[in-house]
């Protein structure tokens, strides 16, 4: 079956001084129907850029698509005209943003913001949309929905605002929900809550979720597949249980080792030596080679390809080629 979302060799650049730098350099992955795919990596690895590209919003942030393909539900996103794109956005693919404080319009009531998508995509009339919005608020767990419908976002806590964002995103029952670090700005106690809500809704609506995060714990609990990104490239792609059982790429191994364990006594916490190379000055060959403990001479010269190992695992490393 065709995946819901297919990203093929996506390349996105940003202008810098007289040149341009590639934030995403040949990223490919699939999002099947009704699955949660986690896009994992450090800050600056290109996860959010990938997400915005899928939404067709990268130009708004100053980025430029240099190449590749994004096929969503059989439609080519990258060459679609803005008018057509706006018909898909919010309806078939929706996004939850990182900072719920800033992502809601401070001057419009939450109820109106939730029902806006319904009106734009003509899913309901003005009267009906209000009722639907109220139901959505209850669905995501906002207490006293009737009283709070007309309140401004400033009167809600961080967790509640994120729920409002979720309500907004799922209002049109999208096929794909992109959740960009949905719990980063929230307390740990709320994180599980939000993720559970997302999981429930996914089962209820039957949507896929592209979960962007750097939190491996979240990934372990909720994701079906994991795509590991580093310096704008996919390093490894694998079902979640296999990834945690046996990570293949040295970077992934390093990430796993960074998670503190209570069952193992450690004098010192593990860390990946070196630092992430600057986007303006990527090293030749494999971008991880200067931090890799298993580096080989060829790693310094040539970039390895992303190859399939067994049907469901992919890795970009000379160790496996």
């Amino acid at each position, binding site marked *: 079956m065709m995946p819901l979302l297919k990203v093929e060799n996506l390349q996105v650049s940003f202008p810098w001084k007289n040149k341009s730098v590639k934030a995403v350099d040949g990223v490919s992955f699939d999002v099947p129907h009704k699955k949660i795919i986690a896009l994992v990596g450090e800050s600056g690895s290109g996860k959010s850029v990938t997400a915005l590209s899928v*939404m067709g*919003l990268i130009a*708004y*942030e*100053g980025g430029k698509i240099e190449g590749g393909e994004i096929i969503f539900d059989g439609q080519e996103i990258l060459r679609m005209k*803005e*008018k057509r794109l*706006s*018909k*898909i*956005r*919010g*309806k078939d693919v*929706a*996004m939850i*943003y990182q*900072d719920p404080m*800033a*992502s*809601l*319009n*401070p*001057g*419009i*009531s939450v109820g*109106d*913001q939730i*029902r*806006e*998508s319904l*009106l*734009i*995509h003509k899913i309901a009339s003005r009267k009906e949309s209000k009722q639907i919005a109220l139901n959505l608020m209850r669905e995501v767990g906002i207490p006293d929905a009737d009283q709070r419908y*007309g309140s*401004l976002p400033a009167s809600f806590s961080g967790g509640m605002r994120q729920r409002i*964002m979720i309500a*907004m995103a799922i209002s049109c029952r999208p096929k794909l929900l992109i959740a960009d670090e949905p719990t980063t700005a929230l307390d740990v106690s709320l994180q599980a809550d939000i993720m559970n809500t997302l999981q429930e809704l996914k089962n209820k609506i039957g949507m896929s979720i592209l979960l962007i995060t750097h939190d491996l714990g979240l990934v372990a609990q909720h994701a079906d597949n994991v795509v590991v990104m580093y310096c704008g490239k996919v390093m490894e792609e694998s079902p979640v249980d296999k990834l945690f059982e046996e990570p293949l790429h040295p970077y992934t191994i390093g990430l796993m080792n960074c998670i503190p364990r209570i069952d193992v006594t450690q004098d010192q916490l593990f860390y990946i030596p070196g630092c992430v190379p600057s986007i303006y000055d990527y090293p030749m060959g494999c971008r991880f080679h200067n931090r890799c403990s298993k580096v080989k001479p060829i790693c310094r010269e040539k970039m390895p390809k992303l190859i399939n190992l067994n049907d469901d695992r992919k890795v970009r490393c000379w160790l496996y080629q």
Partner: protein
Amino acid sequence: MLGQRTIRKILSKVLVLFAFTYISIFIFSIPYGYSWEIIDGRFVSTYPLYMIFKRCNSTFISLLELNLGYNIKGKALNKVLFTSFMRTALLLSSSIVLAFVLGVFKGISDSNRGNKNNVFAKILISVIPISIPDVLIAAIMQSFAIWLNQRDIHIFKVAGAGTLAHSFLPIISLSILPAFYIARITSLEVNDCYKKAYVLTALGKGCSSKRVLWNHVMRNAIKSIIEGLPNITSMIISNTLIVEYMFSYPGLTTLLMDHIAIADRRSSAIIIVFIGSFYFILNGLYRCISTLFNRSNRREAV
């Protein structure tokens, strides 16, 4: 019932109004010959200060009683003042409305609206128009109208009052500078708002760029634009003086200048208080609109 805080606020505003009125009258009550001379090593004023205060107090009280009296030529001040006041009010209000509408639309068109165009050119376009003195604008308008008149096109009347045609030129001249200021504030606010995250959210929902502009950006920008208006109120009032003077428009300015010329200090003081009142009226109006706007935000927004 009004809370203590509200009462205090109202009282302080009234106090400010009274202080303004008294000081304005005082400025006009100082005789031109007032000076200090050194006699026997001491500073002695050439005019007793208590007389100045006496004059000032009597004018202040008569103003409070709304007993405006007569000017030096024997004309009843209240009639004369009322007509001029209404004419200036018409000029001011029409210009502000025109300036606001023109300014907001120009500001939107000037703004980047998310696209990073040539910043420098935009700055030049916004700075140069507000650098043109209203004197020049009025002079150019008049020359233009005279040029038209010389070619038998009598749309505009160059000076005086009485018909709407007389008011066109002054209204247009008066609205140009504030329009550019408002355009500048608008474009800055709109640019600012477009950088905010909620614009991305709105786009992500499928909003068209038109919808993003009017439902999301302008909703927040207008508040800031209205909040920036009191800063240009004083500019608008002093521009009104110039425009009225240059077009010989018989509003409060002409009245004031006439009374200064015949050295009628008392009437001049009263007129200036009425000119000053426009400042308070306008700022009060902006505040009301701002509050109303905030309230209406909570109702149906989409």
